[in-house]
């Protein structure tokens, strides 16, 4: 029990990390895009949990809402729209997939070579940074984020609006029937 209390966070991490990766694998391996979407959802949600574990509550929520809500629904719509009944009878993977696997493994090796050479000090995080806002009592992560977002990172925020505008137009232009 104290083991759990001691290492609960770690256990959670391992669990959801596994789910994340599992979901991802599902996405790329499952034949039916529908199932793929489902496992993608799994990945999204477990990633959200991983966020929470790094004291990023707000981001976690956004992840759940935007991904789990918006994007996933979008995907499902499209899948419905182009209902792919004749999918099963064509090959799943591209002929070159063995190379891709090989390459992915190679990348894995290469990157891990880099990663093992980094020694991150055991997390020394000062969680208060993520939660406290100067001058505001009982502040929360959301407030902190908001503050930072609307002060330091205001410009990107504005640009993001332009970006979304473009995305909207684009979706409309391309999706609209003549």
């Amino acid at each position, binding site marked *: 029990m104290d083991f759990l209390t001691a290492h609960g966070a770690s256990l959670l991490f391992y669990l959801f990390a596994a789910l994340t990766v599992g979901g991802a694998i599902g996405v790329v391996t499952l034949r039916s895009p529908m199932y793929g979407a489902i496992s993608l959802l799994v990945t999204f949600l477990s990633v959200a949990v991983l966020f929470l574990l790094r004291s990023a509550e707000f981001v976690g929520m956004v992840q759940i809402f935007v991904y789990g809500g918006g994007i996933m629904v979008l995907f499902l719509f499209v899948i419905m729209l182009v209902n792919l009944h004749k999918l099963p009878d064509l090959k799943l993977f591209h002929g070159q997939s063995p190379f891709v696997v090989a390459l992915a493994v190679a990348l894995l090796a290469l990157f891990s070579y880099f990663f093992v050479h*980094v020694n991150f000090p055991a997390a020394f995080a000062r969680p208060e940074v993520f939660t406290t806002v100067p001058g505001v009592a009982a502040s929360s992560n959301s407030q902190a984020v908001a503050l930072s977002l609307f002060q330091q990172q205001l*410009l990107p925020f504005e*640009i993001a609006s*332009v*970006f979304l*505008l*473009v995305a909207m*137009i684009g979706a*409309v*232009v391309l999706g609209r029937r003549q």
Partner: protein
Amino acid sequence: MPNLQEYLLLAPEILLATAGLLLLVFGAVGRGMGNRDSALVTVVSLVLTGGVLLRVHAVLNTPRLLILGGSFVLDGFSFFMKLLVLVATALTVLLSVRFLEEGNYRASEYYALLLLAASGMLFMASGYTLLTIWISLETMALASYVLAGYFKRERRSNEAALKYFILGAMSSGVLLYGISLLYGAAGTVQLSELSEALRGAQGNPLVPLGWLLLLAGLLFKVAAVPFHVWTPDVYVGAPTPVTAWLAVASKAASFAILLRIFYEGLGSLHVEWQTIIAIISVITMVWGNVAALTQDNVKRMLAYSSIAHAGYILIGVLAMSQVGLWSVLFYLLAYTFITLGVFGTVILLERREYAGETCADYAGLARRSPFLAAMMLLFMVALTGIPPTGGFVGKFYLFAAAVQAGWSWVAVIGVLTSAISLYYYFRIVLYMYLRDSDQTTPTPLQAPALVGAIAFCALATLALGIYPGPFIELAKQSLLPMLP
């Protein structure tokens, strides 16, 4: 709380974005706006933006101003780049008018997207944190995906959009991954802080991995080998004006952030990335030029040529000196006019359904329409880098930078490959002047906007070649603080 004066300095970007929005709105309400009107509005707004831009930089009393919490910078470099983008976009609009008419697609969204993308480019030129830069890059990219697929009833246009999108998204994922690693190493995304932090973080393996992936993403945008695979297909598939715009504006903007990040943010690592870029540049020049040799499709040939030119520009980048910087800027300028001119001519010759794309369609052009032939000749000469054209001075400047910085061997490859390029550029000339065609109907020069644009480009090309002084001076206004 950032004060409002600072936002006044963003006037050009804001103006442009607003214009795009308005265009969208007016295009949507009622019967919407016609092609010409929207084009007019677009050009006007671009010109206005240019004016505002000039004004803004006139009121600046310092060569370099960092605002909005160090996320936005105003300096000669961004100024030059913004002007370049505006000019390029304006010319692109002129190129588009007739094309859209033939394609009869709704014009207003098209121009709106152009404007929004342009504003994104302006932000790229001035962005000073990786976040800002990246988000504006994405804005530009997204718009260009859509524009590439704008002729959605054309299978080729759609295919182009598809390829561009998937590969673009993937590459931006890579780029983003690189950024995240850099962030991980430095703990900041603000360039000046980043370079400070990196100076401390020598030997941190995340750093090289970070900038390598970042570089991979950027090389994709500038279409350097081996990240060029999308270019030929997209250039051929996309509507020709969009192709021109991609080849010029988006390439220029991407080079802007490449320079910004690697000179200012990663200057301390130049010894490492110079060699990498040198290799890439050599491969790119060779590959682009050689691959272009056997292309019969003019647009595809031009695609490869633009790949090759990316290689040339990289020569200037890897010099890692002010001269290099200026040479890149000047070259981008010259290249803009030349390329737009070429594509303009192509558009003028293009019949519906992508006729007029193969070299054979240029046979005997010198007889059918001497004007167009002369223009094309001029642009080909310029692309080859023969005086008295901007292309020559540009190449000259680039190679000068390389030689001075001790990259002569890269320069040697550069000059040799540019000699090779003569072959395919002059194959078109050969068709135009030395071959006779069955059809002798003179090509009609309707579409005054288009012809005007071409003529303008031609004049600019010559001016840059015969009296480049002022333009070089303009380029010299931009100084990036970099290590020796």
